[in-house]
Structure formats: C-alpha cells, structure tokens
C-alpha cells in the first residue's frame, strides 16, 4: 500500500478539494499527512471546514484520534518550552526558540498540531556553556552518542550534540548559529538575537527571520534539505505575515542583511509554485535579481519535485547522530509514564514512628 502523496499535494494547494473526497480517500490523506508530519495541518483544515460531512463512524474515530494527537503534540511542545524557560530563565542567557516551538509559542499556523523531533534553541556563542550547564542541571543529558558522533558534533560541526531529557525523553538542540558552520552561508546570530520578539514570555525570531530561517534550513548550499512540510511552513508564514504593513520590505531587507538572498528566492519561488502563495508582484520582481543561472534553476526545479513530493526524508549528518532517537518519539509513548511520588514520612499521620 503506497501513500497517496499526489492527493496530499493537491489538497495542500487547494484545501477546498477536501470537501469532495470519499471516506477512504480522507483516510488515506490522514496516513499521508501523518507520515509527512502534516497531520496538524490536515486536522485544522478539516475542522475549519466542518468536514467530512456524514462520515462513517470508523472515519470519525480516526479523525478524532488524529485531533487528539495534534493537541497532545502542541501541549508537549508548550510544556517543554515551559521547562526550558525554567532552566534558562535564571541564567541571564539570551536564549530564543526557533522553528516549531517558536510557531507554537506565537500561535502561528505552522504551529497547529506541530510534531517535532526536537526543540531548537538559539543562544549567542558566548552563552553556550552556561546554557548547556543549565540544561544539564534540569535533566537534559548530553545524549548517548558514541564518542565518534559526539566528537563529530563538537569538533567538526562546532555544535553541541542534541540533549535528551532523562525523564521526559524530549530533545533539545542548542545552537549558536542558524546554519551549520560547514555551510557556505553564515547569517549573523547577533542580528537575529537583536531583532527577536517576545511572545507569551519567550523570545522568537522576528517575522522576516522566521521565514528566512525556514528558507535557509531548506535551501542552504544549493541542496534541498527537507520535506514538503517545510514548504507548507513557509507558505503558512508568508500568508500570516504577508498582509502586515512593511513585512515584505523588511523581508527583502533582512534577506540582504543575513546574506540569504538565494534561499529567499527559492523559498518564495517554490511556495508559489507548489502552494500558490500570494506574493506582491513588486516583491516577485525584486527577488528575481537573486535567481540562479538558468541551468542551476532547472536542476533545482527537478530536485525540489523529487525531494519534496514524496516520503519524508531527514537530511544528512543529523540522521546518523540521531539514529538512536529516530524511533523514540518523546510524546508520551508506552511505558514511559512515571507517576511521581510526593510524600514525606513526616507528613503521614499514620506513620509508624
């Protein structure tokens, strides 16, 4: 049984088509969305449209289960944010959330039912040791990587390996830059930190930087390192911000300031082509100056189609190092629920001594 990615892409582009589907197709969509980490998106679209109408009980059950999963994903992210805040808040470190956790904190569309493998936190390079220490103290362990992978992270990538929480099994990825040091592009962290905004008690990148980070993550170094969900994120962010006065001007300006013009060009190009994202004509013209040579553009078109319209693939270096964690999803899964005991002998009136 192959998953119906073609149908998924059709409804991503035109969610109104959800209304005309047979139950077995809606069911197949749930499966495809689940595999591509777009279940939250699908549940939201179905609920917003009051679909499906007159569903058989088994389908209502499936959607209800998907809805429950989506809610739990968000709850878990919010709780982890709360716990990270508690760990880092006392240290004076200038920390901020990136990507999924940021979307959820800000109530942005890509945050709906967001399923993540880990939580990305950005701190200035100088704050890295203090941040790492604080997270250790609050239960995040440097991770059970073998010495080779651990050194790979620290020495080659100049990154900290991901840290897993000893009880909750959640993973925090602590960064001092938004792209790996081995990348050709080096968007300055200081500028991202300076322009950070506060939402619900935590700091996240400003609107332009959220989009540019998603773009850089997907398109840095002329490769496609991601999946269809990343394009849905970019489309969702651009639709959410695009109507705000000054956004597009700021976006273009920041793309230059962070030296992310090429990823910005690709992000907008492919969001428009795949998902029909509305972009002002003037912006479109400006971005065209950042287009690659025609031959490169053609290769990229093919790469994108192949990489983004099929099963999710996690990219490169991270996959090897996280292989240990790949099947251990930290949403409360069987046998990890621990009941915590808060009793003290002295507080028991029936204590024997």
């Amino acid at each position, binding site marked *: *049984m*192959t*998953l119906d990615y073609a149908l998924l892409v059709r409804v991503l582009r035109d969610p109104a088509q959800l209304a005309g589907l047979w*139950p*077995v197709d809606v*069911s*197949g969509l*749930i*499966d*495809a969305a*689940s*595999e591509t980490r777009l279940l939250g998106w699908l549940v939201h679209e179905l609920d917003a449209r009051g679909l499906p109408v007159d569903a*058989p009980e*088994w*389908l209502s*059950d*499936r959607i*209800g*289960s*998907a809805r*429950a*999963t989506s*809610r*739990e994903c968000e*709850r878990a992210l919010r709780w982890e944010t709360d716990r990270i805040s508690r760990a880092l808040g006392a240290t004076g470190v200038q920390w901020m959330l990136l990507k999924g956790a940021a979307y959820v904190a800000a109530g942005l569309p890509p945050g709906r039912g967001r399923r993540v493998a880990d939580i990305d936190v950005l701190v200035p390079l100088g704050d890295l040791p203090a941040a790492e220490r604080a997270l250790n103290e609050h239960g995040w362990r440097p991770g059970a990587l073998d010495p080779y992978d651990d050194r790979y992270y620290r020495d080659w990538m100049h990154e900290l390996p991901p840290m897993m929480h000893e009880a909750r099994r959640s993973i925090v990825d602590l960064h001092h830059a938004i792209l790996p040091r081995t990348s050709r592009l080096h968007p300055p962290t200081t500028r991202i930190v300076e322009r950070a905004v506060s939402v619900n008690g935590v700091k996240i990148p400003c609107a332009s930087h959220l989009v540019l980070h998603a773009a850089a993550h997907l398109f840095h170094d002329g490769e496609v390192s991601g999946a269809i969900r990343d394009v849905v994120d970019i489309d969702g962010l651009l639709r959410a911000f695009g109507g705000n006065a000054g956004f597009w001007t700021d976006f273009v300006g920041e793309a230059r300031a962070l030296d992310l013009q090429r990823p910005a060009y690709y992000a907008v190009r492919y969001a428009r082509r795949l998902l029909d994202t509305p972009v002002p004509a003037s912006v479109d013209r400006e971005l065209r100056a950042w287009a690659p040579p025609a031959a490169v553009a053609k290769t990229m078109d093919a790469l994108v189609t192949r990489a983004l319209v099929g099963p999710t693939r996690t990219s490169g270096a991270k996959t090897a190092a996280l292989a240990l964690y790949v*099947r251990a999803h930290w949403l*409360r*899964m*069987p*046998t990890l*629920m*621990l*009941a915590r005991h808060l009793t003290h002998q002295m507080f028991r009136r029936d204590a024997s001594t």
Partner: protein
Amino acid sequence: MTTLDSSLVSALRTSGVQLTIGPFLVHVRSSLPGVRNYLDRFYGEFPVRDARDGHFSVSVVPGRGLRRWIRPQAISLINGARPFYPLPGNLAGPLFEWALNWAIGRVAHRWVVVHAAVVERGGRAMIFPAEPGAGKSTLSAALTYSGWRFLSDEFAMLDPATGLVWPMPRPISLKDGAIEIIRARHPDVIYGPEGTNVDDERFVHAKPPVSSITRVHEAAVPAWIVTPRYRAGAPTSIVPVARAHALVQLAGQSFNYNYLGVTGYETLVRAIEHAQCFTLEYSDLDDVIARLTEMTDA
C-alpha cells in the same frame, strides 16, 4: 474452526479484507500464507467483509528482492508507515498481531487504553494493569480457561462516555515457562506454532474460548482493579490498595489518557471510584483462581 471463503482469500492477497476485531474495523492485506493461516486459526469467528477501509490498515508483505526468497522476511505496514524492522518470514502471522498492538497503542484515542489484562464474571470486569512481564497473560489465560470470560490480555479499552470496558478477544500471548504451564492445564485449547520473538522469548498464541469471541458485543463494568505479581513460592495474598494509589498506578499503565485531556483522566478516576482495588501476589494458579472466584462470588 471456520476459514475464509475463497473470494475473501483472494481479496486478502490483493486489495485486502476488513475484519471486525472488538470495536475496531481492521483492513488486513497479505499475500503470505503464514498470515492467512494465522487468521484462519484465530480469527475464523470474527466478522469479515470484502472492504478496504477501517480504523487501521495492516499489511504484511514479503521482504524486498532476494529477501523474498532467501531467508525470507516479512514486513508490516500500518497505515502506510513502517515502524518495525523486517522479521523472519515464519513470524508473518504474529507480526500481524504485533502490528495491531502498535496501532491500538498509538492511534486509538477514541478510547482510554490501559496496558492490562481483562477478564469478566457476572457482567463485572476484573482488570489487571501491569508492566509487560508481570504475568498478566498467564493469569488471565488460566482464569479464562477455567470459565471466566476473556476480554483481553494486553489492553483494557475504557469508553470515556460510559466508563465501560470493551472486549477484544484476540489471541492470548504466552511466553517462555507460561507456555508449558497453560498447555499442561489446558491441552485442548487451540495453540499456534511456537516461535521466538525479537526479545529472544519463546512465545505461543492461544485462542480464547469461542464463547468469549462471540460475546464481543458485551461490554462490562470495571469492578476490580488488581495489580498482579507472580512470586515463586508465594501464598496467594490479596491486599487492598488505597484508591488514590491505585489511580496513580492505573495512570502509569495508560498509554494515552492525557491525549484525551481531562476527559481521559476522569475516565480513570471513575474506573477506580466504582471498583475495588487490590494488589495480588501468588504462585499457585489453582489457589489464586479459587480465591478470585470466591471473591467475585461474594
């Protein structure tokens, strides 16, 4: 033992068939004879239709390329995903069962699912929440073949709307020494072939009595919540547990109550509220069966 009729056998191999297993409609597809034989043996009395939809879709397919023939493999797909590594082909039938366990444990949030065995007497259910390896399958098998009704050896399915526990009389999974113990006591039960699982345990599936299977539509009220512990040489001891403690233990064995939020938690609260809660230590099956039967008669 009934078998799938020929049109359904053909459908099983191609587009799949739909089995009704307790509260779930399960779409099953497999061209492997091991799966067909397994379904014939253990699911012959379960309703089956030529349909492709349902709560879950489980396919068990042959290994790729050479591994279809040389040291053949079986691979399971659940709702299009492949969460398991391939297994040896002789485990194709049990792989269907384990795939179903995976699905119920992860995508069945219409229910509050508790890792527990469940048996019933007089319309009232006895639930044994426990870690894997605590012996709940052995205990529930022994009670079942002594006349209790069998609901499950793996999952207590609690309905948030009514608080009732719903049956899923699937094959009972016996491991290692439990195999000999139950076989000696009940040689006429229908057993599957013995195998070794990925945790290197010997296992055998045992078919529940047909009466348990045909009474699949009868839910039961949770009346006793009993945490079992087998200890060699131990006399049977049934010790009451304060309900607050029992609630926390029950929550500890529930995969998904928090997916249902407050409703999920309150389903557990309610189950405990109306039940008697005990810990049970035992070593002698005859004695523990007699004691539990006596307790439930009272």
